[in-house]
């Protein structure tokens, strides 16, 4: 990579390109042995794209599902109380300063855990819900969300972070009932979709930021590893 003597012209261009990248925050693509850097960058880009895709799908899916739940759930200003039971769904409402203050690793891990649990709850949505078309859309969305969980894991491993242990934090506790009556189940479903939407919106911003951060950070790591 960064050999001292007898280096072919390509490598000296590489040094120059790295310096430019470090200064100008541009990825030094051609000259460096960039397979891992490219891998992380691409991974993040794909995860970002997938997040945006899911956001878009969710708008249609949520609209249809809330129509199935019926008014007032599908009214634009509907904002029911969040009962204690509903706290089990990972809340997307956090202090933004606190959130931005986390390390990349912690943020990615939080995303990974949240989506794993959201996926579990989503799969528990009414299996008999509405039309075959709604069920089909739900199934497709679940598969795509599963893809997002895997994608985040891919980003974490390409950046060298360890995966959070287990599929997701504690599984839905066996003691507490899923929802004691149909109306409360509807409220749970509403909150699930709402939190999912906020999570996806924020994750897109996270991945966008991460995308811009990655190349110099990774190059620095590699240089340090080689003792330069």
């Amino acid at each position, binding site marked *: 990579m960064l050999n001292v003597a007898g280096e072919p012209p390509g490598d000296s261009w590489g040094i120059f390109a790295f310096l430019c990248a470090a200064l100008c925050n541009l990825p030094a693509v051609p000259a460096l042995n960039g397979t891992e850097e490219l891998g992380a960058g691409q991974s993040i880009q794909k995860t970002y794209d997938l997040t945006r895709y899911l956001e878009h799908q969710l*708008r249609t899916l*949520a*609209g249809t599902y*809330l*129509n*199935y*739940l*019926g*008014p*007032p*759930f*599908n*009214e*634009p*200003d*509907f*904002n*029911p*109380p*969040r*009962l*204690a*039971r509903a*706290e*089990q769904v990972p*809340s*997307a*409402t*956090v*202090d*933004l*300063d606190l959130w931005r203050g986390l390390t990349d690793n912690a943020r990615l891990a939080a995303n990974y855990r949240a989506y794993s649990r959201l996926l579990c709850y989503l799969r528990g949505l*009414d299996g*008999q*819900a*509405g039309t*075959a078309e709604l069920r089909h859309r739900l199934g497709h969305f679940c598969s795509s969300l599963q893809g997002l969980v895997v994608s985040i894991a891919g980003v974490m491993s390409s950046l060298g972070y360890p995966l959070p242990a287990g599929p997701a*934090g*504690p599984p839905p*506790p*066996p*003691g*507490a009932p899923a929802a004691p*009556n*149909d*109306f*409360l189940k*509807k*409220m749970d479903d*509403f909150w699930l*979709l*709402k939190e999912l*939407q*906020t999570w996806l*919106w*924020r994750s*897109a911003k996270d991945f966008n930021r991460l995308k811009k951060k990655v190349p110099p950070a990774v190059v620095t790591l590699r240089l340090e590893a080689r003792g330069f």
Partner: protein
Amino acid sequence: MNTAPQTGLVLPELAGRAPEPSTSRAAEGCAIFIYIYIYFFFFPPATSFFFYFLAADPAVISPQDPTLLIGSSLTATCTVSADFHLRAEDLYWTLNGRRLPAASYAALGPTTLSVALARLNGSKQQSGDNLVCHSRDGGILAGSCLYVGLPPEKPVNISCWSKNMKDLTCKWAPGTEGETFLHTNYTLKYKLRWYGRDNTCQEYHTAGPYSCHIPKDLALFTPYEIWVEASNRLGVAVSDVVMLDILDVVTTDPPADVHVSRVGDLEDQLSVRWSSPPALKDFLFQAKYQIQYRVEDSSEWKVVDDVGNQTSCRLAGLRPGTVYFVQVRCNPFGIYGSKKAGIWSDWSNPTAASTPRSERAAGGCDPKGGEQNTTLRRELKQFFGWVKKHAYGCSNLSIKLYDQWRVWLQKSHKTRNQVLPGDKL
């Protein structure tokens, strides 16, 4: 990101702005979350009930999630829990988002308000009508889902078909429209007539909302009993049993390789050729075919019914110089000696062809004919010249005679053409 979601969900920007007024709420939420986590992680399930009582519901509605017949009446009560310090006068009801008139309310106690609903209509959505008890400021205290509908009636009009004897698809119609208010589950069942074991069809909605597909393990030459069971929250209904043998309801793919071509220069005919559906080539059956055709800009199909079991047919009486669309379909009746008519296949994809334009009857200005005759005429002229020189007799033979013959020919052009088809046939 600034576009509002078209749902009842809060705009992301609002969620982002939330920290300001609800930072303490968020902190509370976090605290509760951690609390739950610790409880469920470290303590056995029995303790979770303790936690459940800590966060009791604000109110209780009775009846909770009832199932009712259309037209029935209901009196529901909302009892607020003591912790909330609300009285019956502070409450109101909504049904599917619309406020119910206060005239239908009655206070049954200091913390209990009832509402009377009469002559209920079928549920607005299959997930149940949302009857909600609110506090004065609009907050939701409790809710109940009302399932109002009719018990199912016997499903009717069961019809089945088998594609190439490999499978069976059946469809039916629901007994009444009332079944759409509640979620009605349909199960198609079948059994061999004298064998006794009920089987259930698994693949639904393959040919419309009320259909099911049985992909394998079907016996031929023996009758099946088939019926549909409809069930919802209000009851169960079973259709009449339909008895059939797979071989009597066979259908197949449309005929393959449909080709339509002109018949020589004939202006009013087209020849249609196709091949027998390949899936049934190994089976003994008599196919019947039907052809339908129409003119390009018309939507009226003409059907040719008496095609029999040939794989070609000639359409006659067509308009010259017109584009026609032609389709063919097949009925595999008499398969394995079955006496019943099979089921017509789908029509093949339309094939187009055009009939030749008619030649102009007024002779003379026929360039094609003229070209042909120029060479012929020249040769004939040479021939007659030679005959005059070398043959004795036939001296009247000359090119003039030939010209007269040509004129006679064009005068009788139409007659000549009408004769020719008869010759060819």
